[in-house]
């Protein structure tokens, strides 16, 4: 090969690479399936199924005045229900398995005043599903590694988004071919057929933890819980007095409480609930809901897909409660009473009978 051959190769090679990468970048930036640059295009059949990648963009560029925050306990809410029952334009921003830090990360974007979303709509309400077991996590612990190029404001690392085969094929080409956009009211919903919700299915997949002999110190869970609330949740409550925070403890099944008893930390856990409620009730803009002592629901495993995940009917019911105030806790005394009821449900439940059968 003579010298000019090498130069010609280099020239054509880089021109080819540059042209294709520019075209791909323009296409991805124009459609923007993760809503990183702008609000959704009218008429494009967006597929929304990736919490880690799409939540930050949605929080910045969607039109909404309220949002749902929390773990998989929140994925089966229908945002249309919030519109119908409370008159809110709600956006679902759940992270399955979310730790408090995950809530913090997305709430930081939600309350960022410089975003398109906040410039166009005030935040009227946040519906926050609070999973007590996660409040003992480290305050900076997140469930999954985040694609930071979609969370930070560094334009250089956006190449990971712009030059990404999955984005191009799964979120631009595929929707164009299939023409089946996600229903924004139902995004991220899981276990969506009724078949999943039955006693046999739950018991078949349930594995009780190893029993623990020594009872956990009642105060053991408090320091971390306090830290998590103070670092990851309460700052948003304090800094946004005009936003109503609907905080709720999701109704795990009675099997969750079996785990708590088997691991010998019932008193510590109830104390943790009491502490969290006391902290939250100090704020006028917090409305606290306790659904765990809905005895008919939590003791009937036909309402569950596993030991914690409940039927979407329960989500609808909880939305109705947010609207009419049922199951709302207004004082520490009320919460103590509700916890006493919970304790009675646990004490009266016949675990032996449940575990004596074959499933």
């Amino acid at each position, binding site marked *: *090969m003579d*010298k000019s*051959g*090498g*130069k*010609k*190769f*280099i*020239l*054509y*090679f*880089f*021109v*080819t*690479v540059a042209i*294709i*990468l520019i075209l*791909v970048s323009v296409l991805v930036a124009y459609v923007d399936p993760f809503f990183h640059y702008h609000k959704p295009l009218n008429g494009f059949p967006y597929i929304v199924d990736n919490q880690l990648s799409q939540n930050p963009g949605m929080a910045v560029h969607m039109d909404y005045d309220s949002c749902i925050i929390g773990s998989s306990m929140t994925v089966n809410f229908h945002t249309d229900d919030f519109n119908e029952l409370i008159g809110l334009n709600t956006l679902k921003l759940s992270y399955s398995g979310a730790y408090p830090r995950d809530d913090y990360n997305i709430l930081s974007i939600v309350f960022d005043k410089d975003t398109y979303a906040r410039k166009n709509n005030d935040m009227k309400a946040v519906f926050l599903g609070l999973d007590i077991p996660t409040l003992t996590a480290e305050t900076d612990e997140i469930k999954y590694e985040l694609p930071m190029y979609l969370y930070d404001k560094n334009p250089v*690392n956006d*190449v*990971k988004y712009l*030059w*990404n*085969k*999955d*984005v*191009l*094929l*799964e979120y631009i*080409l595929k929707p164009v*071919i299939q023409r089946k956009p996600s229903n924004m009211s139902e995004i991220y919903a899981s276990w969506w057929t009724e078949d999943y919700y039955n006693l046999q299915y739950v018991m078949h997949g349930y594995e009780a933890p190893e029993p623990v002999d020594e009872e956990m110190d009642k105060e053991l869970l408090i320091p971390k819980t306090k830290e998590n609330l103070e670092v990851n949740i309460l700052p948003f409550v304090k800094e946004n007095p005009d936003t109503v925070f609907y905080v709720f403890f999701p109704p795990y099944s009675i099997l969750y409480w079996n785990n708590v008893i088997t691991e010998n930390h019932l008193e510590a856990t109830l104390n943790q609930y009491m502490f969290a409620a006391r902290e939250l009730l100090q704020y006028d803009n917090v409305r606290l809901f306790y659904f765990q002592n809905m005895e008919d629901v939590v003791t009937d495993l036909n309402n569950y897909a596993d030991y914690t995940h409940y039927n979407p009917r329960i989500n609808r019911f909880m939305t109705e409660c947010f609207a009419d105030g049922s199951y709302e806790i207004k004082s520490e005394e009320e919460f103590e009473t509700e916890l006493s009821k919970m304790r009675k449900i646990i004490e009266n439940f016949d675990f032996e009978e449940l575990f004596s059968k074959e499933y």
Partner: protein
Amino acid sequence: MTFNSYSFIFIFLPVFLLGIWGIQSSFLQDDKKGTLMKLWLIVMSAFFFVGYGRFSILIFSFSILWNLLSGLAILRSRGGFSKYIKAFAIVGDVALLGYFKYLNAGAMPVAISFYTFSQIMFIAELNKEEGLNIIDYLCYVLFFPKILQGPIADYENIRAGIFDLHKRKLNSDNIAEGLRLFTLGLVKKVLLADVLGKAVDFGYQGINTATALDALVIAVSYSFQLYFDFSGYCDMAEGICKMIGMDLRINFDSPYKSGNISEFWDRWHISLTRFFTKYIYIPLGGSRRGIVRTCINIMVVFLISGIWHGNGWGFVLWGCLHGLLMVLTRLLKGDKKAGEAKKSAVIDGIKTLLTFLYVTAAWVFFRAPGIDSALALLGKIINIDAWRGFHISIKLAECFMVDEIWYIFKVTPIPRWDKSNYICMWIIIIISALIIFRGDTARKIAKKRKAPIIYGLLLVWGVLSLGGVSTFLYVNF
């Protein structure tokens, strides 16, 4: 940082190359250019390694300090005392590697296996006549194209490679060839190795439910994955060196085309074979002390190779299996060099196939989570009853379904959509097999095939596929 990352391809590599080319084209005096070139290599190589975190940097720094001080002590020692210091330094290197590989349950420092062997070579080759130049040493040990997966180049080789690097003129032919090699390597890694890897990961998680054909597909896919992973890395490393006008030693030369195990080890991880031959096999006596001793020496070498590759009995067994076949080959062939007795295409084909199958069976012990799982997988392949139905699980076939082929299927009148996963699987396996057994090496292709637009498209395809791809397998060794 790895070669298959956006930051490497679009930031690190261009900056590195521009620096090298800038120094080569500068009007500085020769000695200043030489020093500047070496400093640039050291700084960029250190920067390349920084991304692996404090722990890996700390251990690597300790290793560098240990060997540098040992080297200085060797040069200052009197009489025959230097050999004791050399032995002590090497024991220290081996101890460090052994501790992290076998005694420490925590994280492994990145690339420790590779740089430890480089350090051993440095200490072993150090002599008082030539002395020790700290800058040369740092260039050798840090040189980023080889740091993660080799080749395990000897000190003199790298020193010779960088010695007159500053004198080389910017050569567009070399740059073009390097770009082609780098592109081919990237494509092998992200478009083949990682797709096969997905099926392998799935397969090894469900050995108990695998059918006989599943087991065979899983085992062969892993052989292919390792091939594309390692050869992809070697091509990229060679490509980078080519672009700066340096020839990196060949480390991988179509090993699955080998007609026997001896030839295989002359082609697979060539620098590792050279290291073991030079520093273990020959000091043990090599083949000079009779056939029994030769066989023992071979077994020792492969046992150590197995131990070097990983912590667990599977690696030991893998080494033993290779050692055993090497011994058998030696007994049957004598001292004849591999490839000398070629008879006919059919016989050569059978020999190649049998060698590949043996190597594939041995890789099962390398990959499986335990010996039980490895035996279970191999048991399924050799159990004739398990072959009834000749069935491949749909879940396994689904792992091979890549988006690119899915879209082609969508616009093609393939009549039975329920078979599309299987079609995709066979397409990938057949293409892989053709490249491995019939294709030229990337080195030859890069010299012969020069269509810039095709390479441009391949590079873009590789770049677009970078998101979410795994790390190189040999980084873990």
